[in-house]
C-alpha cells in the first residue's frame, strides 16, 4: 500500500515537473527554429516577429490533437488577416502520416515537420498537445498542456488580448 502510494506520488511529481519545465518559458524569448513545412518551403519562427504566433505541437497518435486542430484552424482563418499566425509542429517520425491527417482534417494553417524532435526538445515538450502563444515581440506569454473542450475559449481570449497590445 505504501509502495503504491509512493509510486503514485513519484509519477505525479514527474508529470508536474515536466509541466513546469515548459511553463518556465513564460516571459522568455521564444527559442528560434526553422523547419520544413507541408508546402515544401522552410519557415523560421523569427520571421513571424510582429505577429501573434501560436505554436501547436501535435502528433497523429494523439486523440486530443485531432479534436483540437479543426478549432485551431477556425481561429487561424478568423484572425490571420489581423496579424495572427499559427504553426503546427508535427513530431511524427514519418511526415507522410501527418500529411494524410492534415488532408483528412482539412486544416489550412502551416504544418512543420520536426521528425528529429529537435524543436520539441527545445520547448521541453513531453506530452501532446502543447500550445505555446507568442506575442508580437517574440516573447512566450502562455503555454497550455493538453486539450479539453473549452480550452479554445481561453485561446480566443488570449489571442484577442495580445492582438490588441
Amino acid at each position: 500500500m505504501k509502495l503504491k502510494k509512493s509510486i503514485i506520488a513519484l509519477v505525479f511529481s514527474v508529470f508536474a515537473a515536466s509541466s513546469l519545465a515548459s511553463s518556465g518559458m513564460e516571459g522568455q524569448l521564444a527559442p528560434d527554429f526553422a523547419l520544413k513545412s507541408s508546402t515544401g518551403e522552410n519557415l523560421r519562427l523569427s520571421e513571424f516577429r510582429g505577429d501573434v504566433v501560436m505554436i501547436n505541437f501535435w502528433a497523429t497518435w494523439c486523440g486530443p490533437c485531432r479534436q483540437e486542430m479543426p478549432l485551431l484552424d477556425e481561429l487561424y482563418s478568423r484572425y490571420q488577416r489581423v496579424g495572427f499566425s499559427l504553426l503546427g509542429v508535427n513530431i511524427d517520425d514519418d511526415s507522410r502520416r501527418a500529411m494524410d491527417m492534415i488532408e483528412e482534417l482539412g486544416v489550412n494553417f502551416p504544418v512543420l515537420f520536426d521528425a528529429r524532435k529537435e524543436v520539441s526538445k527545445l520547448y521541453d515538450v513531453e506530452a501532446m498537445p502543447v500550445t505555446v502563444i507568442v506575442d508580437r515581440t517574440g516573447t512566450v506569454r502562455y503555454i497550455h498542456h493538453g486539450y479539453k473542450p473549452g480550452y479554445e475559449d481561453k485561446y480566443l481570449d488570449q489571442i484577442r488580448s495580445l492582438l490588441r497590445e
Partner: protein
Amino acid sequence: MTKTFITIMASSLLAFSVVSVAQDAAPMDSDAALAEARDAEAQEAQSRDEFRAIDQDVQSLKKEVLDLNRDLFLLEEELLFPANSQVAFFVSMDVGEYFDLDSISIKIDGKEVANYLYTEREADALIRGGVHRLHMANLKTGEHELVAVFIGHGPNIREYRRGATMTFDKGIGAKYVELEITDSITAQQPEFNIKEWE
C-alpha cells in the same frame, strides 16, 4: 620771520622724533621676517621631500601597471588563441539562375556540427550579397576534414544534393572558411567551392 623760524624748527623736531621711533621699531620687524623666512625654507624642504617620496611611489606604481599590462596581454592571447582555437564557417551565394538553396549541413572530421535550413528570405539575402556565419567551432591544431552538403533545387527545378570536401590545417590563431555557391555559365550548373580566408 620769527614765526617762520619757529614753524621750521617745530617741523624739524617732529620729523626727527618720527625717524627715531621708526629706527627703534626696525630691529623687531627684521627678526619676524627672518623667522618667517626660516619657516618658509623649512616648509619648502619638507615639500621637496614629500614630492620626492610621492614621485618614487608614482614611479613604482607605473612599473607595476606596466607589468600587469604585459601579464594581461599574454593571458588574453592565451585565452583568445589557445591550442583549441576557433574556426568560423561562412556561406555566400553568387547565383541567379542555377540554384535554389534549401539547406546546408557540415561535418567536421566525420561528425555533423551544423544543419541549417534557409528560408526564402534568407536565401534572397545571400543572393543580394549577404554572408551567413553558419557555424563556429573550437578545433585543435592540425589537419581537419570538412564536408559540406548543399541541398536545393537546380536547373529545371531538379532536386540537387551536392557535396564539397576540404582538408585544412588548423594553426594558431582564428581560421575562417567560406562555403561559396556560384553560377557556372559554361556548365550551366551551380558550383560549390570551399576556400580559406587569408
